[in-house]
């Protein structure tokens, strides 16, 4: 077992991020080499990735990424940040205080854009009792809020954003990283789990206010423990609605997985068979909620094998 980043201390972490080879970190099945000279990024990485294992100098690095200030006079009056992948800048710059969110979005892009050894869904995924709960949903559906609440309620975080399905056996490969919350969700989770230690709030991103908190240390330490699909649940936050879980036809759940897959087309018929195997092994539901404690209680019952679905 290699040492965790937190054992380095903040100064050594910053020095590694500034170095030519970058800070090399394990992130689930991947190793990322991260470079940045931005103090805000140093602080965020040191805090939010403290429990992630350092990778050795001889380990293969899947992504060489960085966040830096673009050159030019603008850096003196309206600084920006740019994400770099293998020395190239694939995206437009963002305002200067968005370095860490940009790094996270860029790392997501690296995974879903290049890691076609997995079929990848835009879905949060957690585990309990060896079974994975897959929450496929677009942004704004309440997926991340529900995921954050569940990981403080006995569920293991596999990922809050990207579900990696191994083609060989249909297992879900954990990729625990900092959990991103937006806007009202930040306050909701602060109230639900006062012990959570958020990183800095970043205002006025394209998604609104964004804040991250670290993946639980237990989730990071169990990143090699895969889970088999158990439930596919389509969450939707609806104000003033009681928590309600309704069974969903498997074929419709299948189509939702297709719609939320980043690289289904890459796999062709194999992708169809793989998603069908996920559905074969899962109970499928639609879920509406407005209260996080209600939602958590209902999912605990679901995990215990109780029939909590309404007609």
């Amino acid at each position, binding site marked *: 077992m290699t040492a965790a980043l937190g054992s380095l201390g903040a100064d050594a972490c910053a020095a590694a991020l500034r170095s030519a080879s970058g800070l090399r970190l394990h992130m689930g099945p991947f190793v990322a080499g991260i470079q940045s000279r931005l103090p805000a990024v140093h602080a965020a990485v040191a805090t939010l990735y403290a429990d992630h294992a350092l990778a050795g100098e001889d380990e293969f690095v899947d992504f060489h990424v960085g966040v830096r200030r673009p050159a030019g006079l603008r850096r003196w009056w309206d600084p920006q940040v740019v994400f770099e992948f293998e020395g190239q800048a694939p995206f437009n710059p963002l305002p200067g205080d968005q370095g860490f969110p940009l790094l996270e979005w860029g790392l997501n892009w690296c995974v879903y854009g290049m890691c076609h050894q997995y079929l990848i869904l835009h879905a949060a995924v957690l585990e309990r009792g060896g079974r994975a709960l897959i929450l496929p949903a677009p942004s704004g559906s309440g997926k991340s809020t529900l995921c954050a609440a569940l990981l403080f309620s006995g569920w293991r975080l596999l990922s809050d954003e990207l579900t990696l399905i191994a083609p060989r056996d249909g297992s879900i490969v954990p990729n625990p990283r900092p959990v991103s919350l937006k806007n009202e969700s930040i306050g909701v989770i602060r109230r639900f789990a006062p012990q959570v230690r958020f990183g800095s709030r970043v205002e006025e991103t394209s998604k609104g206010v964004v804040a991250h908190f670290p993946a639980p240390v237990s989730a990071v330490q169990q990143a090699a423990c895969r889970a088999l699909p158990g439930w596919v649940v389509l969450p939707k936050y609806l104000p003033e609605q009681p928590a309600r879980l309704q069974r969903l*036809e498997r*074929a419709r759940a*299948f*189509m939702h997985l297709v719609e939320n897959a980043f690289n289904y*087309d890459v796999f*062709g*018929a194999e992708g*169809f068979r793989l998603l*069908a195997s996920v*559905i074969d092994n899962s109970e499928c539901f639609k879920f509406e909620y407005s209260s996080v404690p209600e939602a958590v209680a209902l999912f605990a019952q679901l995990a215990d094998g109780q029939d909590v679905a309404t007609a």
Partner: protein
Amino acid sequence: MGGIADSPRRVAAAPGMLIRDWGEDVSVVFSAATASTHLVSADAAAVLAAAADRPGGADAAALAAPEELVDALVLAGLLRRVE
């Protein structure tokens, strides 16, 4: 010019078609020919399964398929007209 309605009634499943039927009102179908995935009614899935069992093609009537359904499945690339 003849349209679909004037085409021969004999049809075959598109090559490389996969069907998953969980015994519900709807099923899912993958067509390798068009690299597309479809949600189809149970009736349509039954017709496609019957067509897949007859690689050489079959008369639409033998598949118990209404003409409108055959036309829709042909348009979706899941059935093909055969002479």
